[in-house]
């Protein structure tokens, strides 16, 4: 056997300075600076190109067009005056995008929760039906679903022309609870009277009082162990004060029942929904529900099995087990991916253009087609969606931080 000698590693002098291009700390900084400079440079170059070329072709690059008249009417918006400036058209588009987004989110959340839980049901039929739902909606592009709903419910659907609309009365009276036609639907709505200003003050008081009551109930519950029922208490407080405010203001709101006009072409009064809105909100709600259902299912499965077993051990009913043990824990896991789905839903409302829903994208396209400058209009459009998405994610992230498990 030969003797091998292990040479000691070379001595490193800790004071010896490394050349800069081998110094990790220097390289990191340089790398980041280069990356940022490239991105900024690229954007600046594109932007400069845009401006130079628009300028060369004598195309305006200012936003003055926002103050000029719109000159066209908006679908199913009787209140819009075509002489009002373009920025008001943008506001109408915003309102419609917002409406479809909110209604879609509500539908998606409720349906998604129910379907998600159903997928885990021990009932064979319920579980399979939920699976069928998820696989159907999840695998069809939302645009196709929207167009399908537009055609299936309205264009080729079961509802009659507005002049012979189906009218469902409210408990034997002549007031219409629901008017169904192939273009617009009417439901009862509330109309603000002149003195509504007074009401809004009491409305503010009611909100504050409701928050106060909720906090009080929580603290009471923490001190004494009584069930807090804070949602019921807060809602009750809010309703009582708001209703008192309504009467104090001398009837700030009045009920408005929808009525088909004599020529059969309008619905007067009530709250009117057009087919584009219904098809968009419903299709996106049901489509997103399929994704949320999967998130809910995954989150429930992610709650340790011991939690369920413990709940069973203390003889909680199935509902109690979900309500008090499983769902509060699953919600924490589900919230971040659900936020993403909400954002997608709001952005997808732009597909409403396929069923002539007058949301911001359709109006922007119309406005570009009628001679408004495309780059500025598109910039506004992008800004609108950006703000929408940021606001939603800010709100929900704040909520997420609040309900997150505090790890110590």
């Amino acid at each position, binding site marked *: 056997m030969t003797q091998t000698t292990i040479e000691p590693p070379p001595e490193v002098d800790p004071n010896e300075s490394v050349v800069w291009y081998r110094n990790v700390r220097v390289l990191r900084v340089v790398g980041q600076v280069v990356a940022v400079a490239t991105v900024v440079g690229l954007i600046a170059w594109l932007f400069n190109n*845009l401006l130079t*070329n628009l300028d060369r*072709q004598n195309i305006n690059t200012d936003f003055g067009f926002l103050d000029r008249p719109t000159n066209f009417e908006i679908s199913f918006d009787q209140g819009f005056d075509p002489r009002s400036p373009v920025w008001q058209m943008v506001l109408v588009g915003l309102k419609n995008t917002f409406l479809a987004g909110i209604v879609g989110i509500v539908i998606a959340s409720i349906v998604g929760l129910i379907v998600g839980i159903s997928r885990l049901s021990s009932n064979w039929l319920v579980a399979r039906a939920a699976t069928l739902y998820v696989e159907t909606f999840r695998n069809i592009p939302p645009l196709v679903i929207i167009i399908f709903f537009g055609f299936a419910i*309205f*264009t080729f659907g079961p509802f009659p022309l507005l002049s012979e609309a189906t009218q469902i009365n409210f408990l034997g009276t002549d007031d219409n609870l629901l008017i169904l036609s192939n273009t617009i639907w009417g439901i009862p709505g509330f109309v603000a009277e002149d003195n509504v200003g007074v009401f809004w003050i009491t409305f503010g008081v009611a909100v504050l009082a409701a928050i106060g009551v909720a906090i009080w109930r929580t603290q009471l519950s923490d001190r004494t162990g009584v069930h807090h029922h804070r949602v019921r208490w807060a809602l009750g407080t809010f309703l009582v004060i708001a209703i008192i405010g309504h009467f104090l203001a001398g009837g700030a709101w009045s009920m408005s029942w929808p009525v088909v006009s004599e020529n059969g072409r309008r619905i007067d009064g009530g709250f009117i929904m057009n087919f584009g809105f219904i098809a968009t909100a419903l299709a996106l709600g049901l489509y997103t529900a399929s994704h949320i259902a999967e998130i809910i299912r995954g989150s429930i499965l992610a709650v340790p099995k011991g939690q369920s077993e413990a709940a069973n051990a203390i003889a909680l009913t199935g509902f109690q087990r979900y309500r008090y043990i499983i769902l509060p824990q699953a919600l924490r896991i589900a919230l971040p991916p659900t936020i993403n789905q909400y954002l997608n839903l709001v952005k997808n409302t*732009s597909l409403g253009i396929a069923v002539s829903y007058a949301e911001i994208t359709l109006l922007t396209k*119309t406005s570009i087609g009628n001679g408004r400058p495309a780059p500025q209009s*598109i910039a506004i459009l992008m800004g609108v969606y950006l703000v929408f998405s940021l606001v939603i994610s800010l709100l929900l992230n704040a909520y997420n931080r609040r309900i997150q498990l505090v790890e110590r």
Partner: protein
Amino acid sequence: MKRLFALIAVLALVVAACGGDDDSGGGLLETVQDRGEVICGVNETLPGFGVVDDAGNFSGFDIDFCRVVAAGVLGDADAVQYVPLTAEARFTALQSGEIDMLIRNTTWTATRDGQEGANFLYTTFYDGQGLMVPAATGFTTLEELADGNICVLTGTTTELNLTAVFNARGIPFNPVQFEDNTQLRPAYEQGQCDAWTSDASQLAAFKATIESEGGAEQFIMAEVISKEPLGPVVADGDTAWAQAVNWSVMAPVQAWEFGLDSGSIGSYSGDNPNILNFVGDGDFNPTLGLPSDFAVQIVSQVGNYEEIYNRHIVPIGLQLAGSPNDLWTNGGLMYVPPYR
């Protein structure tokens, strides 16, 4: 779709930006001659003016004028690349240089001429906006449409005319804006709209299609609510190209006035000096950047105006005689400057 559209718009401008720098050397006319192909922005969903069949072949009145330009500039009517465009995307495509010319039932208006950086050339078709209702309703006047839903394509001048005319007369109405005719048509036929407004030529085309496909009988109101001069458009700032396109497009009208058609132009044997100039005999050279036999190429390959009209517009139910598109000598508006 919104994101896609936004992306395309921005990308188009970026492409314009990149492409813009290097075409300072030669004009578009030279570029087209080098390429050996005219890139033409067209409509592919409008019967009579521009449709594409199952095999991908384009045909129609506007399509034929793309062919006219290709025949005039390149001597080959088939040397055209068609780019189907939506109403909103058409000017961006022109500004960005994605297409050489646009002929897509586009109305010549002051705003478009100015703000869109577009250069409108000879009007090939005089149209006007009309309204169509199912014949069973018996409606004949705009007033009968009060409060009605009126189907309209979004991003077109029709929308502005509709609003202007109805507001001026104090008739309340509700526009239902559609992105393209494939969605508008079923909505109209199923009664979601009380009327359909568009250029009268388009309505005539759809009336013919609906009735021939077994749909309800349609009625086009007599009232024409706007002027819609339709013609080819090129980008501002390139005079040589604009002149080449313009004089090519006008050649079929001049041929018609001279009584020459696709069969007879190649064998003209008379001694009318104006016609001899037109067919490129003799030493006539207006230095438009076009070959001397451009008119012969255009008319023999595509036809004169009357032939083009009869081929595409008569089948959709619009007669030439007595219309604004008749020759000026017959009381119409087709009048081109002399080729001399």
